[in-house]
């Protein structure tokens, strides 16, 4: 494969003829600086183009609104609205309901998933387990299933007339009382394995000496798990908590899939669906942009809160 190496790779020991002349060796500091900039450039360009510019554009869009006039059949005029779009979102009952739905979702989903994932990770990490790799793979497998596919399969399982889960639980999984637990179930199924892997990897790094010392002091497996292992992977748990919190706020795929199966999931059921409806059904881009910025701010604040909590706990 060496023949295909292009001339633009400066690390190549024997540069072909077309390469640039090497920089003079007399200025190492500047060279180091330019190397650093060069290495950071791809990331910086990507960050600029795919994150900063779109976020900036969304913030800009959120300050404008399309004004129609008369019958509206002649087209719209884009006018400056200032923060009025934000006020519209913040006072919209549909937006409040969507926030309540994700709050309810997060309050069930996060504790349940963390408890299950931690339990499985500790079991996998314990000395007695057999077929460890098989179990690891089995637990991780749901994460490898694309979210929409998983959503559809669960939706079929919940559907009356064809799904075995339709009549089994005490409440109809697609009714207005049952739909939140149903969505929690779908997300928990999907994401538990992912967190198990993270926790399990962290558990592997707990030093053997510490565990041996605990055993020498007479701690049983349960005591070791609760008093040694879990506290030692606390930073990992908090990082996973941040991810899960943000993911919960952005809940979209599962309710979107269920929408075609039940009218219980409204078009604005979660903040992400609310934004989708505003942008792509109502063509109200200002409101969609404002709601997106608000969602981003809420995510940032919640993540900051979780991180601060983690800092205090580990002190």
């Amino acid at each position, binding site marked *: 494969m060496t023949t295909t190496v292009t001339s633009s790779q400066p690390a190549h020991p024997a540069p072909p003829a077309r390469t640039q002349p090497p920089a003079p060796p007399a200025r190492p500091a500047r060279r180091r600086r330019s190397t650093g900039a060069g290495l950071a450039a791809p990331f910086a360009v990507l960050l600029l183009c795919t994150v900063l510019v779109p976020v900036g554009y969304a913030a800009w869009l959120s300050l404008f609104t*399309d*004004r*129609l*006039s*008369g*019958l*509206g*059949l*002649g*087209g*719209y005029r884009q006018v400056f609205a200032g923060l009025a779009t934000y006020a*519209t979102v913040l006072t919209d009952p*549909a937006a409040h309901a969507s926030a309540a739905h994700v709050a309810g979702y997060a309050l069930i989903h996060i504790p349940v998933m963390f408890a299950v994932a931690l339990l499985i990770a500790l079991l996998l990490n314990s000395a007695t387990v057999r077929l460890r790799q098989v179990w690891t793979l089995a637990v991780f497998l749901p994460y490898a299933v694309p979210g929409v596919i998983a959503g559809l399969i669960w939706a*079929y399982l919940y*559907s*009356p*007339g*064809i*799904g075995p889960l339709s009549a089994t639980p005490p409440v109809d999984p697609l*009714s*207005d009382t049952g739909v939140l637990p149903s969505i929690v179930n779908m997300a928990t199924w999907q994401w538990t394995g992912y967190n198990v892997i993270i926790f399990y990897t962290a558990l592997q790094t707990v030093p053997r000496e510490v565990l041996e010392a605990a055993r020498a002091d007479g701690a049983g497996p349960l005591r070791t798990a609760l008093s040694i292992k879990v506290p030692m992977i606390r930073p990992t748990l908090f990082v996973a908590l941040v991810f899960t919190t943000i993911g919960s706020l952005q809940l979209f795929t599962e309710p979107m899939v269920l*929408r*075609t*199966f*039940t*009218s*219980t999931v*409204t*078009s*604005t059921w979660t903040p992400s669906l609310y934004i989708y*409806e505003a*942008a*792509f*059904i*109502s*063509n*109200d881009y200002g409101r969609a942009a404002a709601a997106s910025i608000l969602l981003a701010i809420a995510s940032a604040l919640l993540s900051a809160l979780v991180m601060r909590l983690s800092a205090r706990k580990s002190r």
Partner: protein
Amino acid sequence: MVFGTPSGAAGGSRSRPLPSRRSLLRAASGLGAGALAGGALTGCSQRSSSAARVRIWSWLSGMDQYVAAFNSAQRDIHVQLSSIAAGVSGGYAQLANAIRAHNAPDILHTEYQALPQILTTGGLRDLTDDMADLADGFLPAAWRGVRPGGRTWAVPMDFCPMTFFYRKDLYDEAGIGAPRTWEEFARAATAVRRADPEARIATFPINDGAFFAGMAWQTGDPWWRIAANSWQVGIDGEGTMALAGYWQDLIASGKVAHTAVATQSWASAIHRGKLWGMLGATWGVGTIKRSLAADKGRWALTTMPTWGDRQANGVFGGSAFGVSAESEVPEAALTFLRWLATDPAVPRIGARLTFPSPAWAANRKVARAAYQDDFFTGEPIFDVLDRAAVRVPEWTWGPTSLSVFSAVADVLAPVPTGGTTVPRAMHKLQSSTVAMMRDRGLAVADGGRT
């Protein structure tokens, strides 16, 4: 690449002088029949480099075949199709975004109910003068549908009056006649449940706003009206409220199902004979025939039951096509659209692929002759559909129809559990729709018509 130049087509074709519309029309007339006779629908092989290139975005099934037939039969215009996601599944978002970005295709797919909302983007060309000569050829309701505000904004292609599909074999067995009025429908609903406690007459899909609007259309009490350059909103008008009360009773008493149509569990219920019918529209002919092949000879269709003896029919679906205001080849685009709407070759192709329901009145006879029906029993389907197509009352779609459709589904969601009633939901929808329209700057006349 949606906007890429096709290999072989000259990039500079847009700047060349266009052939006059008359000569294009001459070239296009009758070409479909020739193309069909030759059986050569495959190709855009010998297109000349001076052909006007027309881009179209559509999700109409069979559009690729129509485009191929058009392209292979003449050399002056080359139509280039991009299939996009259907309407509210992403198609309209894509169209609206393209219009804002000033790179919309020359021809845009729009359903009648979406046309006023698309017009609020200012992206469509006024076709009033170009289309004036065709005014009398279309079904009157389809023609009205492309003329919100009295100007012509699109070319009607197909038109879908609502119909009631039912299992004639089960009805006959249970001694139930096809319901002609909604009163008879309610009685039939009771009779169906008596014949089989698990079975229902049909489902009233509360998650489908376009369906509910089509039902309201039949009452002759439109949700929107235009008067004195402002909108009148009548979502909780007399007709809709009577409709709402009627279905509230049927849903609350469990005489109809209320789940979505065309889902897996719906199909399963139909297959197992637990749903004896479907409140649908013209497109249901193709859907039922395709998905229930084993039920051949068991299904029949009839016009929608009526309110008393007022012979009226609502509409649920149908496509039209607009021309972009920024198109550089509007004449060529119109030539294609006039062919698509009126040429007898189109329903002949359509009859092979799906079920054609042309908006061009003369083509309905062509469709009737070309479509081979061996599936349905009872009255011939085109008798039913032609009767339905000409008794469609006045109706105007609003500039926020698509948002209202998702709002219908949202406000009706708590109905099955008793969280609200259909009439109450309609009052709520009326006030939220008026508020939303005012919020966007539209002129909305005060006072509903309740």
